[in-house]
C-alpha cells in the first residue's frame, strides 16, 4: 500500500473491502514514522497501545460485516495541544513535558468515535505561539518539501505529517493562522472553521476568543469528512454554537456558477511575493472560468489586523497561561524556598522565550494605566475588522486571498525578529478576529519547488461555500500541484 497516496476515503474503502486491515495499516504507518520521521520531527509522542486497540475494534467491525463509521481505520495525528487521556500532552512546552492528560478533548473523542485511529501527538510551537514551529520546546519540524525550510506554524507537525504521508489526516488549532499557514507551506489542505463550529473542550487554551479547531488533509474532500465528524454543539464548551451541521460532503464537487468571489486589494499589496501573487491570480482566473463572478472589494482595516491581534491574543494568553505555576501539574522547579519563588523559578525554567515575550506583552497591555490604551483600543478595532467582513459578505459569497505573503522560509531566518515572524500571519489573522471560516488549498509551486497556498474565506457557518470553491481551485490547480499531494484520488483508484 502506498501510504503517500491514501486519502480518508480510500483508506476506509481499503479496510471495508478487506484489501488490508486497520491493524496492518497501523503497522505500516508506524514503520514509516520509524524510518522517516527523524528527518522531519513531526511527532512528539506516539500512542501505539491506543492505536492498536482502536485498530482491533475497527477490524472486528469489518469482520462482522457491520456498517463502518465514516473514518473507520483512518490513521490520523493530533496536534499536541489537544488533551488525550492517558497519553502525554505537552502543548510543545517543557513545562508540560511530563503531563498525562486525564481526559480526551471533544474533537479527539469524536474522531475516534467515527473510527479514526490516533497514531500520535504532533509537534508545534510552544502553546501554539509561533509561525515556524521553531518555538517548540522540544525540537523544530522540517518542511517535507525542503528540509532546510520551516513547515510553518504553529501546527507545523500536523501539516508536515500529512505532507510526508506519516498520517492520512490530522487536526490542529488556529489562533491567527496556525492551520492555514502551515497547510500552505507544506502543500496540504487546512481548514479553520467558524468560531464555535468545533468544540474547544480539551484544547489547551492560548487565546480563547481566537482559538479554533480544524482539520488538515490531502484533499478538500478529506477535510470536509474530518469536519463533519467534529462539528456541532458540545455542552462542555459554552462557546460552541447551537447551529445545525450541514452535510459538507454534498457541497464538495458542486458547481460554482454564478457565485460572487470577492478579491480585496488589501491582500495583494506591499510584501506579497511575486510568484505567490501570480499563483493566486491564476487560481482566481480558474474560478472565473468555472463561472464565478469576480468582484473587487475592500476590507479597509486589514493593515490594522496584526497590531490588533498581538494585543488581544497576548492579553488573553497572559491570563490563560497563569495556570502554569508548578502546583497542580507540569514540571516544578525544585529550588524555590517560598511559594512565590517556586512560581517564578518554575515559569522561568519551563517556558520558552516567545511564550515569555507574549505573557509580558499581554500583561503590560492589561496593566493599570494601559488597559484602555491597548486592550480596549484593540477590541474596538476588532469591531471594525469584523464589520469589514460583514460589509463584504453583503455583496459576495466568498473572498479569495493568498494564504501567506511568501512560500516557506528557511529555518533560523526570522527567529531573531519577532515582528517579522508575526507578519507571516498577515493574511490569516483577520479571519480569527472576525470568527469567519477560512481554508488554504495548494495552488501550485514556486520556481524552487515550494508549495503556494490560496485562501478562501466565507461567511460565518458557510463552510459549504468555502469547501465548494476550494474544491474547484484544487482540481484546476492539480496539474501544477506538488507530487507529494497531487491527485491522491487518482492514485488511490489504481
Amino acid at each position, binding site marked *: 500500500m502506498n501510504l503517500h497516496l491514501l486519502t480518508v476515503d480510500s483508506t476506509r474503502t481499503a479496510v471495508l473491502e478487506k484489501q488490508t486491515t486497520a491493524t496492518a495499516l497501523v503497522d505500516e504507518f508506524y514503520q514509516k514514522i520509524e524510518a522517516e520521521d527523524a528527518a522531519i520531527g513531526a511527532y512528539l509522542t506516539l500512542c501505539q497501545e491506543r492505536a492498536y486497540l482502536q485498530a482491533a475494534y475497527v477490524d472486528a467491525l469489518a469482520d462482522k460485516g457491520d456498517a463502518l463509521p465514516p473514518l473507520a481505520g483512518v490513521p490520523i495525528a493530533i496536534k499536541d495541544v489537544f488533551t488525550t487521556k492517558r497519553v502525554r500532552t505537552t502543548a510543545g512546552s517543557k513545562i508540560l513535558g511530563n503531563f498525562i492528560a*486525564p481526559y480526551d478533548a471533544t474533537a479527539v473523542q469524536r474522531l475516534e468515535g467515527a473510527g479514526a485511529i490516533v497514531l500520535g501527538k504532533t509537534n508545534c510551537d510552544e502553546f501554539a505561539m509561533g509561525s515556524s514551529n521553531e518555538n517548540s520546546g522540544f525540537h523544530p519540524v522540517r518542511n517535507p518539501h525542503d528540509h532546510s525550510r520551516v513547515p510553518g506554524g504553529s501546527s507545523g507537525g500536523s501539516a508536515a505529517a500529512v505532507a510526508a504521508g506519516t498520517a492520512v489526516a490530522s487536526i490542529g488549532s488556529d489562533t491567527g493562522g496556525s492551520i492555514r499557514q502551515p497547510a500552505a507551506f507544506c502543500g496540504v489542505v487546512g481548514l479553520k472553521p467558524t468560531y464555535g463550529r468545533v468544540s474547544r473542550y480539551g484544547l489547551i487554551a492560548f487565546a480563547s476568543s481566537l482559538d479554533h479547531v480544524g482539520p488538515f488533509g490531502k484533499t478538500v474532500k478529506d477535510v470536509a469528512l474530518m469536519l463533519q465528524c467534529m462539528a456541532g454543539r458540545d455542552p462542555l464548551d459554552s*462557546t460552541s454554537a447551537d447551529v445545525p451541521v450541514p452535510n459538507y460532503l454534498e457541497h464538495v464537487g458542486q458547481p460554482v456558477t454564478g457565485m460572487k468571489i470577492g478579491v480585496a486589494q488589501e491582500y495583494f499589496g506591499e510584501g506579497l511575493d511575486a510568484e505567490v501573487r501570480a499563483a493566486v491570480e491564476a487560481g482566481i482566473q480558474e474560478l472565473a472560468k468555472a463561472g464565478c463572478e469576480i468582484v473587487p472589494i475592500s476590507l479597509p482595516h486589514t493593515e490594522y489586523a*496584526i497590531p490588533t491581534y498581538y494585543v488581544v491574543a497576548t492579553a488573553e494568553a497572559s491570563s490563560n497561561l497563569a495556570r502554569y505555576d508548578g502546583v497542580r501539574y507540569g514540571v516544578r522547579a525544585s529550588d524555590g524556598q*517560598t511559594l512565590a519563588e517556586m512560581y517564578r523559578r518554575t515559569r*522561568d525554567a519551563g517556558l520558552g522565550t516567545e511564550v*515569555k*515575550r507574549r*505573557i509580558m*506583552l499581554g500583561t503590560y497591555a492589561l496593566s493599570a494605566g494601559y488597559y484602555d490604551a491597548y486592550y480596549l483600543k484593540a477590541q474596538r478595532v476588532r469591531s471594525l475588522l469584523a464589520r469589514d467582513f460583514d460589509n463584504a459578505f453583503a455583496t459576495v459569497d466568498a473572498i479569495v486571498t493568498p494564504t501567506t505573503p511568501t512560500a516557506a522560509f528557511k529555518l533560523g531566518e526570522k527567529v531573531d525578529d519577532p515582528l517579522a515572524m508575526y507578519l507571516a500571519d498577515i493574511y490569516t489573522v483577520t479571519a480569527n478576529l472576525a470568527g469567519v471560516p477560512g481554508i488554504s488549498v495548494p495552488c501550485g509551486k514556486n520556481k524552487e519547488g515550494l508549495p503556494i497556498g490560496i485562501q478562501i474565506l466565507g461567511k460565518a457557518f458557510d463552510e459549504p461555500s468555502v469547501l465548494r470553491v476550494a474544491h474547484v481551485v484544487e482540481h484546476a490547480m492539480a496539474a501544477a500541484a506538488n507530487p507529494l499531494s497531487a491527485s491522491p484520488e487518482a492514485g488511490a483508484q489504481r
Partner: protein
Amino acid sequence: MVTEKDVSYVADLAHLDLTEAERARMLKDLNSILGYIDRLNELDTSAVEPMAQVASRYGARQDAGAMRPDEPRPSLPHDEAMHNAPASDGIFFKVPKVIER
C-alpha cells in the same frame, strides 16, 4: 516607551524572574512591538463598541438556555486529578510555605 522599571514591574505581575539578558531583550522587543501596535491610534474609534469575542455574533446561546441545569454530576476522580501533581501528600497539593514567620 517601556522602561527597565516597567519590565521589572510587569515580570513581577506575571511571576517571571527573567535573567539580565532576557530583560535587555524584552525591553528591546516590547518597544519594537508596541511601536508597531501604536499605529492603532491612527483610527478614531470613539464611536466603536469594543468586541471581546465573536460567540455572541454567531450562534452561541447567550440566553438562559446556554446554561446547563445546576445539578451535581460526576467529576474527575480525586486520584486522577492528583495524578499529575508535582508534590502531593495523597490528598492535597504540597507547596513551599506561603506565610513567613
